[in-house]
């Protein structure tokens, strides 16, 4: 099952692209699993996710915690804490 990933702010800058499609292998069940799996894809990913505590995640445009299941997600976004308003 492929899922679209979106990256914003310095997460996007470190990874070097705003979006991509990935196919996580079976066993990648939660957001935390996905972040750990992505971190191994290359130095730029490891750098982006080096402090998972400051990474925020949205699944299908709604905030989720890192224990959220990714099954069925169409769009998963990773970004730093927000500074709008």
């Amino acid at each position: 099952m492929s899922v679209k990933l979106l990256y914003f702010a310095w997460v996007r800058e470190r990874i070097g692209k705003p979006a991509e499609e990935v196919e996580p292998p079976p066993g990648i069940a939660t957001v935390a699993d996905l972040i750990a799996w992505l971190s191994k894809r290359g130095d730029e990913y490891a750098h982006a996710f080096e402090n998972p505590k400051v990474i925020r995640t949205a699944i299908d445009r709604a905030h989720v915690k890192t224990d959220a299941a990714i099954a069925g997600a169409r769009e998963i976004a990773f970004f730093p804490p927000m500074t709008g308003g």
Partner: protein
Amino acid sequence: MAATIRLQREPFDAAAEAAALARGRTDIGAIVTFTGICRGEENGAPIAALTLEHYPEMAQAEIARQVEAAEARWSLLGLCVIHRFGRIEPGAEIVLVVTASSHRHDAFAAAEFLMDYLKTHAPFWKQVEQAGAKSGDKSGDKTWVAAKSSDESAAERWVNAEQIGREQP
């Protein structure tokens, strides 16, 4: 209840938006209009501009959720949220929240609630462009603004207050 939510690059006119919300109505007794403005300094250093990145589809959905929460919690007769993105210079407006109700308590509370939630949950990210960059310098260099824990605490107190309210006999 009519709620306007707009994300836009262009400046807005706070007074005109508040006037439009109240036009022709005699049930509104209170309108609160909050404008967030770009300051000229960040962490003690003068800035040339802020640039706001955003996640458009989620920003629209998330602000709509916050508006729905405000409507459920307070008696509102009208509401308008406008959030700009892109490059914004000191003195220029960034965000508008207008709330209208019969009496002032709900309008004030809903406006503050929405601002606390916009600061922490709306997917926007600010970059600072330092002042004093001369042409030919490595300018266009921007640094990301860090989120503030005081903003997180401000948003959390609405959750705590609601929980306490529910526990009251």
